[in-house]
């Protein structure tokens, strides 16, 4: 059996003396989509922040390609795309400037794909508009445009469909399915019913922790 891409072993996290999850173990293989489910406040975002390496307030072990996370942190960061609650878009920069900076600091991106990506998320003609004059949904689209030019094998997406219209959601789902088909992995949270059927696994948080 090949080593899983990402492995979480016996994760434990509490917040304000409330246990969010304990003895949480799972693996993620290349080509798999892991959908983290649970009611509001069940720790989905916390889990994703822990997996992405933003939060260290947890116990347990994470490993990346079979190695402990602390040893391969830089390799992991280079291989991951994180989409969080905050879009990470600077209001005074234009959409294109925002994405170009992202490309500059992330090696696994194709800077020449920025224009095409903006067109694909429906922002053609908005490349040179400062992001503060775009709507909330458009700002999230700017951030989601990264999915089109990123070559990172792992995507960590926290509520990627919030404030995105129906057509946009269908396109993003197709993109996620294509990414998995190419051998990439996705961890995502969403309250929306995923239309993707292949290679999707569910991880339930809150009450029904798998033991």
């Amino acid at each position, binding site marked *: 059996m090949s080593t899983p891409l990402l492995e979480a072993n016996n994760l434990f996290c509490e917040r304000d003396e409330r246990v969010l999850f304990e003895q949480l173990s799972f693996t993620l293989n*290349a080509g798999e989509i892991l959908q983290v489910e649970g009611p509001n406040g069940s720790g989905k975002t916390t889990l994703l922040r822990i997996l*992405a*390496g*933003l*939060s*260290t*307030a947890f116990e347990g072990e994470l490993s990346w390609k079979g190695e402990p996370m602390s040893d391969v942190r*830089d*390799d992991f*960061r*280079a*291989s*991951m795309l*994180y989409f*969080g*609650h*905050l*879009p*990470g*878009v*600077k*209001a*005074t*920069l234009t959409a294109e*400037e925002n994405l170009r*900076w*992202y490309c*500059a*600091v*992330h*090696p*696994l991106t194709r800077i020449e794909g920025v224009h095409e990506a903006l067109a694909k998320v429906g922002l053609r003609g908005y490349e040179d508009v*400062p992001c503060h004059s775009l709507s909330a949904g458009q700002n999230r689209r700017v951030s989601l445009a990264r999915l089109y030019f990123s*070559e*990172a*094998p792992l995507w960590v997406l926290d509520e990627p469909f919030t404030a995105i219209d129906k057509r946009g959601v269908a396109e993003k789902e197709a993109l996620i399915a294509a990414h998995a088909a*190419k*051998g*990439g992995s996705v961890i995502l949270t969403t309250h929306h019913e995923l239309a993707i059927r292949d290679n999707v696994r569910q991880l339930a948080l809150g009450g029904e922790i798998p033991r």
Partner: protein
Amino acid sequence: MSEPSVDISLTRVFWITLRRDLLLAYRRRNDLISPLMFFLMVATLFPLGVSPEPEFLSQVAAGVVWVAALLATLLSMDSLFRSDFDDGSLEQMLLSPQPLALLVLAKVVAHWTVSGLPLTILAPLLGVMLYLPGEGMSALIFSLLLGTPTLSLIGAIGAALTVGLRKGGVLITLLVLPLYIPVLIFGTGAVQAASTGLPIGGYLAILGAILALGVVLTPLAVAAGLRISVSN
């Protein structure tokens, strides 16, 4: 999937981040005025409040200009990481495979270029307004040129530690002011020595040494502080 290769040169990452932050500052240039206005105000109001006598003013000029520059820098520190924290850019910075200390250094250099450097350029004007002896003028410029980057670097540690708090302004002051004192002492010392005709090489050497130490060590502390702030 191709193997991740961190082949983007670090120098390029530094310049691109520096340019991005300067562009951000330029697009919000109104925000840059308030520390400068504060700097000018202190120097203008001081003679009115204390004494307009030239002999008295020329004695305290070095101290007043330096204290005003220090407080103006402190005033501008809170905004260093605030907007990046609020819009999520900071998370993306932390998750990039580039060394965070390098990105931080680029941000601090950009911050100094739009705060410390204008202060240094304005300082001779304030010196003249406060009857600073002519011999002290070059010492004032050189000491500020070496001292204000150190103030920005040290202030960045405070900004990094308090960025996760809703009201970080007061806490930054408490954290950072004690560390500013050596810079202030050697900065004003240089100007006072020059005004009385003494050599200032020693003072500038110490300011330079503090700066060198700051450039090397503070980005690491700032990076650690940012990881803590974002982790909570």
